[in-house]
């Protein structure tokens, strides 16, 4: 791992800048976000400055906003540096300071910035509304809200709304479904306008009258909305800010849109028209209007659907070429086979594998797109083990379902909150609500600590079994407890080489533990709010985390500050996962969207909408092509990453899905849920579809309801919620959960 550090960060930095011109305007903004934090005080470089910012007035304004923010927080040195490097005249700030506002770019990890900083980071620039998003500092919330001040007669709101309702009800069927999408955002904005202008009773009546018309999957948001009846409450209400900062995205066919436009103009219904203009983003497409089913499948997120262009960027979802490891594999395999008495049978197979891995997948990123740590000898050994195990792997299928072993956490009265298993299934770790992390060995091999420094000096370093000698036999035990957090541990992840363990906690930190000494090595601070999830990259070294502050961060184990910050989610990030090729991370959020981020440049390259509740489980298929997501709505959705499309919906669970896992060869998808069941789905069949060009181009999907066909089995646990699933290298399914009667 040590080999990578140093050069890595800079390399990434350079790439970021190069890739910039390619990215579109939206991505541009995200790139800014991502880069700003990496300009850590330590590195001494301010990358944002290298950019030819002069071109866009918007960027200039942004820069000024940053300056103003820094000044406000008495960071005069930083102001000076930034100003000098940006080539701004000294007085520019003073001139413009009045109207400009803070931005979301403030690096929250800088010391001394507590509340304002983290709030800023939470309400960062949203990709969908770049210009608006600049205005999110707490004291300036009035600026945002002031958009509501222009108003008509409050009494007429109901008339307007019901007039539109009547109109939409009378249009042709094919348009009605599409136009109905307008109801919800319109309803919310009108309600907020009423509240903002102190028409409390009118607002209540309005809510009373029309909240019943909204789609059921907006229930949660409506509940929040309904409790908000005063202008004062709007300040600091996150949900409201989300609504304000992002335009609600609708996809409507041109015909339907024309219809709506004509109607509103005929009626001189400026009130509604203004709202549509200001707060809605209508993504107009040519062609047939979509059906109700199609719309329902995609809607449900906090800020509407994803824009089509948001999912257009190219994603290199292919796998990286496996490093070639040769000699030992041959020898040992041969031996093993000779022992078993069936020689040579494996030879051709291995050749196949070799040739496959040699061929470069056209969809794979280049091997060096992201600097990855070099393989150590122990990693190679592990790879060999993995491949040997793989040859003994069971081929699963609808007729050949995996056996399931259940790891029950007994007497876990303190509350089990997270579980992880190592890839080779030798260790299991649990995060608990009492702030502890416990690690168990599930093999007969006990957990041992390395000897103390004094004792290490005594041992013979030349001996062959030095690795064995450094272990302290006295400390051998089946389990070890790691103390250090000061809040429930919500996320936990083993490093691929089994030397480290990551845990993220409510106390706002992520901790890196050594599994050699069973001590804490690093506490990564930066989130400042509960960190809901963290995960190691499949290649080690990097890890991603996400939490209540709505920003996902990419870290490297040897940097105490994040390398990237992925901002764009409108609510808590509830789960984070690395793509198998380590070039992408995916995050699920309470805003009911899933975003895929490019590690290289920090861009958001995919936004998936369709879930109707917070997303709590994500899993990439081992070939990297697909993504499965599970949410509190009890549904599993399947996504084609390359095309950016939803390709399947698996209904069956009755409660939140907390874990998803593909079998080693992607044939089976296992899902574990709060409803105490493990369900197995036929992944091969689910992904066996051809995406035609039309669907790919328009993003209109036709999902067939075939959950029942795809469901291969539903397995009850012993009244234990399933919070982790894992396929061993031989495709045995391991499930884990805390038994709490």
């Amino acid at each position, binding site marked *: 791992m040590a080999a990578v550090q140093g050069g890595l960060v800079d390399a990434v930095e350079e790439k970021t800048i190069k890739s910039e011109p390619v990215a579109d305007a939206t991505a541009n903004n995200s790139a800014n976000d991502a880069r700003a934090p990496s300009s850590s005080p330590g590195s001494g470089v301010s990358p944002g400055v290298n950019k030819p910012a002069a071109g866009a007035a918007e960027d200039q304004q942004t820069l000024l906003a940053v300056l103003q923010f820094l000044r406000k927080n008495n960071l005069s040195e930083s102001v000076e540096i930034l100003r000098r490097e940006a080539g701004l005249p000294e007085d520019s700030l003073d001139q413009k300071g009045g109207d400009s506002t803070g931005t979301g770019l403030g690096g929250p990890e800088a010391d001394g910035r507590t509340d304002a900083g983290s709030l800023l980071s939470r309400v960062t620039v949203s990709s969908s509304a770049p210009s608006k998003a600049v205005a999110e500092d707490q004291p300036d919330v009035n600026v945002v809200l002031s958009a509501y001040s222009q108003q008509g007669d409050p009494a007429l709101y109901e008339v307007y709304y019901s007039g539109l309702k009547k109109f939409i009800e009378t249009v042709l069927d094919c348009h009605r479904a599409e136009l109905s999408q307008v109801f919800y955002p319109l309803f919310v904005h009108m309600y907020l306008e009423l509240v903002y202008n102190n028409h409390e009773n009118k607002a209540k009546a309005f809510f009373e009258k029309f909240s019943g018309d909204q789609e059921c999957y907006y229930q949660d948001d409506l509940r929040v909305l309904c409790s908000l009846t*005063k202008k004062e409450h709007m300040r600091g209400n996150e949900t409201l800010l989300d609504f304000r900062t992002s335009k609600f995205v609708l996809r409507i066919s041109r015909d339907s849109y024309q219809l709506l436009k004509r109607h509103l103009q005929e009626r001189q219904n400026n009130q509604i028209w203004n709202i549509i203009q200001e707060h809605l983003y209508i993504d107009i497409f040519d062609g047939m209007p979509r059906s109700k089913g199609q719309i329902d499948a995609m809607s449900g997120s906090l800020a509407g659907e994803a824009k089509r262009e948001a999912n257009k960027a190219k994603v290199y979802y292919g796998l990286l070429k496996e490093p070639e490891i040769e000699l030992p594999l041959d020898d040992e395999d041969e031996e093993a086979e000779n022992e078993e008495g069936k020689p040579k049978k494996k030879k051709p197979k291995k050749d196949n594998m070799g040739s496959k891995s040699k061929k470069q997948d056209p969809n794979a990123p280049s091997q060096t797109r992201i600097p990855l740590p070099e393989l150590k000898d122990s990693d190679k050994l592990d790879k060999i083990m993995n491949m040997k195990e793989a040859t003994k792997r069971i081929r699963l299928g609808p007729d050949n379902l995996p*056996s399931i*072993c259940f790891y029950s956490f007994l007497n876990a009265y303190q509350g089990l909150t997270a579980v992880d298993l190592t890839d080779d299934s030798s260790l299991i770790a649990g995060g608990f609500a009492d702030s502890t992390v416990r690690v168990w060995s599930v093999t007969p091999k006990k957990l041992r600590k390395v000897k103390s420094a004094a004792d290490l000096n005594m041992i013979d370093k030349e001996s062959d079994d030095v690795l064995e000698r450094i272990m302290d036999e006295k400390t051998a035990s089946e389990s070890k407890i790691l103390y250090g957090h000061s809040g429930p541990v919500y996320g936990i992840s083993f490093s691929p080489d089994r030397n480290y363990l990551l845990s993220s906690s409510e106390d706002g930190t992520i901790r890196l533990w050594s599994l050699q000494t069973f001590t804490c090595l690093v506490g990564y601070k930066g989130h400042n709010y509960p960190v809901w999830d963290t995960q190691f990259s499949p290649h080690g070294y990097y890890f991603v985390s996400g939490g209540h502050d709505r920003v996902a961060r990419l870290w490297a184990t040897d940097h105490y500050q994040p390398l990237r910050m992925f901002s764009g989610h409108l609510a808590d990030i509830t789960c984070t996962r690395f793509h198998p090729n380590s070039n992408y991370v995916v995050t699920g959020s309470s805003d009911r969207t899933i975003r895929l981020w490019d590690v290289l440049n920090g861009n958001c390259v995919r936004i998936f909408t369709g879930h109707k509740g917070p997303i709590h489980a994500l899993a990439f298929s081992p070939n990297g092509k697909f993504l499965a997501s599970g949410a509190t709505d009890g549904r599993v959705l399947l996504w084609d990453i390359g095309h950016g499309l939803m390709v399947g919906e698996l209904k069956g669970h009755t409660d939140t899905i907390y874990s998803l896992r593909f079998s080693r060869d992607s044939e089976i998808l296992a899902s574990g849920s709060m409803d105490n069941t493990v369900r197995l789905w036929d992944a091969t069949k689910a992904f066996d579809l051809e995406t035609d060009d039309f669907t790919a181009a328009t993003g209109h999907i036709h999902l067939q309801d075939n959950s029942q066909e795809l469901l291969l089995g539903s397995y009850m646990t*012993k009244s234990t919620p399933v919070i982790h699933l894992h396929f061993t290298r031989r495709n045995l399914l*391991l499930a884990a959960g805390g038994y709490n009667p």
Partner: protein
Amino acid sequence: MADREERRFAEVSRESIKLMAESAGVELGDDVAGLLAEDVCYRLREATQSSSQFMRHAKRRKLTVEDFNRALRWSNVEAICGYGAQDALPFRSVKDGELYFVEDREINLVELALATNIPKGCAETMVRVNVSYLDGKGNLEPQGTVPSAVQSLSDDLLKYYQQITRAILGEDPHLMKVALLDLQSNSKIAALLPYFVYVISGVKSVSHDLEQLNRLLHMVKSLVQNPYLYLGSYVRSLVSSVMYCILEPLAASINPLNDHWTLRDYAALLLSHIFWTHGDLVSGLYHQILLSLQKVLSDPVRPLCSHYGAVVGLHALGWKAVERVLFPHLPAYWANLQAVLDDYSVSNAQVKADGHKVYGAILVAVERLLKMKALSLSQPVEGGSSAQVGSTMGSTGYRVSSPGLSPPPEPLTEAALGIASHLQAGGSGCPWEEWTPVPLPAMYSELYSFFGDSLAVRFSTGPGKGNYAPCNPSQVSNSRKEPSGATSNPDTTRKMPQLTANLNISPRQDGSPRMDPHPPSLAATGSGRSVARASSVQRSRSSSSRSGQRSTGLSRDVFPKARFTPPQTGPPVFSFLIGGRQMGRRCQGRRPFQTTFAPSASLPIPPRAYTHKLPVIGRVGKPVRRWTCSHYSLHLPL
């Protein structure tokens, strides 16, 4: 969405705000209070919504106080203390006025401070794996059940277990006492319960060793009394062990020198204790116990000591049990017992002695049955007329009714209720399902036919309660009124004066040694011989009465007259009332039964009745020492 109206959020009214402000010494205007109330509501909802996120991430279904406090903390609000208790907070209503409140009890802060969410005595957190589904199909274990290894023993617990069992079954009595005491109060031994229960089930293997049996029974008692233990279904196992001690012809009882009677008495006490305190844990337990007791009683092949156990067990379970099981069986059983008692052969001496024990036990049981029945009949009338009288009644009836053999307090009403509910819960088709209660007079007359006047003593003393003079007349009249109907009413009223008259004559007239109401050691030394002799007389007497009964006999005809017509049989009845009163003055608790013989013996009643009473304690040709011992066994308190 139509139900939105009903699902309105909880609201804090402005009145509440005002009240709270007042309690803090601030006066608020209506406007301010209204605004504050609305803001509080809003903040509450906000906090609730964000707290649900903590719940979801903790992968729980239940929102806890902890979650809410976390939400508060993250919004820079002070957390609320004092609601972390595990017990559910009862939500009460005040009867007058529509006021609901959460009961706010005094809380011991020290306890609270040391409280953790982790129950005491729980085992360490651990991971266990089991193959749930093989090839996605076969389940190796039935699903939906609890893993068997939920509890596993830590080293400390194991050590504790070894020490305790060693101490209890070991030689040192002091050590045993300490161990038993600890077993009674230790709160951390829940995990060991199955092991202890297993040890106790070892009674079957030590049936030759009275001492060990006794120790095991003490262990049962300690476990039962431990307030921290939830016995659950282990009650069944404990009960079966105890039942074994009560009913089985233990190897130890072959040797007449062994006092297995005490053991049986103690076990019976224990049984009733378990039943009254833990009977609700196992449905139908009462039923099963009664069934097995009945089975033993109706099995003539069983040795007398088993029968004795059954009788003592029934007695310990309360008079209802006696009424239901023992009483209906009495006629059939009597013949067998009589046969034993009538056999004077030397070889039969031992068996006969046992027979006397059984006879005594039955007598004690039916005595109480009669008394309690009479009391229970009088109870409702009393309760209705005056609460005060009722309460004194309850307490007195209580004291009289618990002659040391039934340890758990069982006020009449409660006992009746409990038993009734158990009987309802029990399965149908049980032998006593078609059982109908025998009216008191009938019952008395039948019992009288067996026991003769020895019975009358108890019946009279029971409801009489001479020591509570003020309320006595009404009670007696009431209790008599119920069974005997309208005709008896004049009788009883006429009897009352006689009662006082007789009082003067009673004990002083006779200078017999048995007048002394002291423990039987005295009585035994004085009258061992005579009692023995008298018992034989009595037996023949009762056998004759029994045969008389069968052939619509003499005693049966005579009896009603004796009981209900004052001129003929008035004297004996009332004279015994006096006896009861006397003992009430002198002593309490279990003594009455020991002492009742003395006054009754001293009474000027026909010799026939006199002889009847004697054999209660009688055991022929036994060494004095053991005789007292066995006598004690009936009354040994625990």
